[in-house]
């Protein structure tokens, strides 16, 4: 492979490899994907750590994300400013967590944050309603939505406080056989 690339310093690449589940080659490939979104905004030389943020619209238009009903939440969770505008590091982090090498607990944690629309560290009824509507693209009737949310609370809420904490959520998700395979983006 050789060390011919000039985008990152060796130290930076090492640091990225330590902090994500990607190898050197993958990181470089991800960088080129990032740059392709906005070649005029992203410099080719990252050794001086330029402060470049891509707006959410560009991220949300990526082919891997554009059909995902939760893409806005995903971008918000992984971005530094919480608005969906991502730096390269956020970008790498996002795809690292969603890759198949990330462990189940890490994914469950981020899934919880994605479904927590109001960012209060609990999935309350309102969050559930929003999740369900995004998931079904508003095709369910209000009655059905209400019933489903009640059932979800009934099944998962262990401490009976009317909302799901991280522990409740993890308890449910860790037992789901298909969670690892569905919560996975390949890039």
């Amino acid at each position, binding site marked *: 492979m050789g060390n011919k690339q000039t985008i990152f310093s060796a130290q930076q690449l090492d*640091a990225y490899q330590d902090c994500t589940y990607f190898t050197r080659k993958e990181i470089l490939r991800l960088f080129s994907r990032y740059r392709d979104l906005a070649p005029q905004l992203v410099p080719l030389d990252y050794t001086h750590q330029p402060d470049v943020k891509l707006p959410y619209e560009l991220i949300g238009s990526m082919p891997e994300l554009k*059909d995902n009903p939760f893409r806005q939440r995903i971008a918000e969770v992984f971005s530094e400013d919480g608005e969906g505008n991502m730096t390269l590091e956020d970008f790498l982090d996002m795809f690292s967590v969603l890759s198949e090498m990330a*462990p189940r607990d890490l994914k469950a*944690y981020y899934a919880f944050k994605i479904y927590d629309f109001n960012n209060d560290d609990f999935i309350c009824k309102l969050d559930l309603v929003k999740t369900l509507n995004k998931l079904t693209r508003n095709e369910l009737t209000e009655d059905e939505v209400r019933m489903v949310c009640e059932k979800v609370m009934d099944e998962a809420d262990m401490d009976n406080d009317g909302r799901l904490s*991280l522990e409740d959520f993890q308890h449910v998700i860790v037992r789901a056989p298909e969670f690892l395979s569905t919560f996975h983006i390949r890039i």
Partner: protein
Amino acid sequence: MSGGSQPVATISRTTARRHKSVRKNSRRIYSHYQDQQHGSSDDEDKEDGRVDSNDPEEMFQNIQYQKEIIANIRTRPWPMRRKLKVLKQAREIVLKYEGRLTRTRGYQAAGANLLKKLSRLLYNIVVLFIPWEMRIKKIESHFGSGVASYFIFLRWLFGINIVLTIMTGAFIVLPELLAGASFGTTRSKTIPKEQFSSAQDLDTIWSLGGYLQYSVLFYGYYGRVRKIGSAGYRLPLAYFLVGMAVFAYSFIILLRKMAKNSRLSLASASDENFTFCWRVFCAWDYLIGNPEAAESKGAAIVNNIREAIVEEQEKKKDTSLAVLISLRILANILVLLSLAGSIYIIYFVVDRSQKLEQEKPELTLWEKNEVSVVVSLITMIAPSAFELVSQLEMYHPRTSLRFQLARVLVLYLGNLYSLIIALLDKVNIMSSAIQVVPGNWSDPSSFLATISQPDEESLSTLVSEMYLSGIKNDSMSTTTTTTTTMATIATALDTGSVFSNASAGKNVLVAWTNHTALFEKNARSQQDPCWETYVGQEMLKLSIIDMIFTVASILLIDFIRGLVVRYLSDCCCWDLESKFPEYGEFKIAENVLHLIYNQGMIW
């Protein structure tokens, strides 16, 4: 990604193992994420403060700590910027202070690294030897971790049985084989002349008579000489001690496992019904990349949820309270009746076989194996019957599962206990009959050849029986394990069970477990009426027949059902796959209970 996927895979495997060791820390960190987020700046200050101490020991510890942080930074749910900052600091600390360590510390650090590498290598090698690891991983990815846990439990039981085999084999069978009197010398070891001609018939072998009866398999083979061989190995003592050791070992290992599990498990049943949660949170496939797939997936999810809602509504239909209670009482009465019925049937069958033996000299195949077949049939059919009955009760699925398990457990225990009692009764009658007719050797040998009762004996009752009942016989009590003869029979029975199916794995594993079960039958054989062989033969028979039934039931019920559903659903008017008869479901809890039942038989 294809080129880098291989090293990534290996990296991820090793890192995954490292992660396992600090999983506790990660979990704590996840749940305290909020505190950490606010305290992040304090955290970093604290780190700096800690390092400034000049104590070499503390420095060393700190360096190790930083290295640990570097190794696990990936698993932290922190934003990237924070991860990078922490990483940079940790690296700086390591670089800066590693030079300050004295030479010995340096060697110690290098040694610790080497040790870590070695232990990781060793762990990788050891994992290779864990049987069926790859297969269980595959099952896990296809069917979920619940099903895989059944197989992990099976593998653990298998391990226990192997250890027990080795213990009994090494201490009892081997000395007997090497140093004991050889075949044909003492009376307890020769086949009586009447049986000699039929000793090699398949019939005799099936009922474990003939050569098998007078082999190391069974009790009566062992002489009662106090010491055998040139070194004076006390065989009777060894037998007794090994029996005790077997129990002690099983007990200790069970306790240890229970303690370990109680720490890990949360306070809820293992078979929880999270259908709605899963359908909401795990439904969307994040890999979908084009709009048509997204649309169809969306529609599928909507349908899925609607179906679940309809199911739920049907469950919630208001039946009046009085009707509900009376239905539940009815269900309970039915269950109790069937339990009592099964116990009575077993007792009756054992009794009947005894009477048959006394009347007729030669029994048919059915009559010989009657009791085992009846017991196995009951264990096979009753749980399904209970399930049907429980539909009357209309409980929450979680509660109904608990009821079901309790009933099945009572059924199994009841069966086994009634078997013991019936058999002990029979033995008592036999022994009193024998003492009445002391010199009649030819008669007992005939009914020995027609043993047809499955039985379960616990070692302690046998040993105590031996000492208390004072039965007059030549042979000593020893437990035996099988030799290659049993292995060949077992493989002959097993050839029909090799086929490829999702449940084939289960089947093969079950067959294997039963092999080791066969390896551990307590048996007593008797030249003179030795009830110990009898009992042992019964147990072996029960094991074998239970195994056959399990194999048959898998083949017929699940496999053929699967074939029928898959290939005939096109020609049939309703969708075979989702309504009756759908694919057989792998009922984890019941299968686990069945495993425990088998293990009980072994013990």
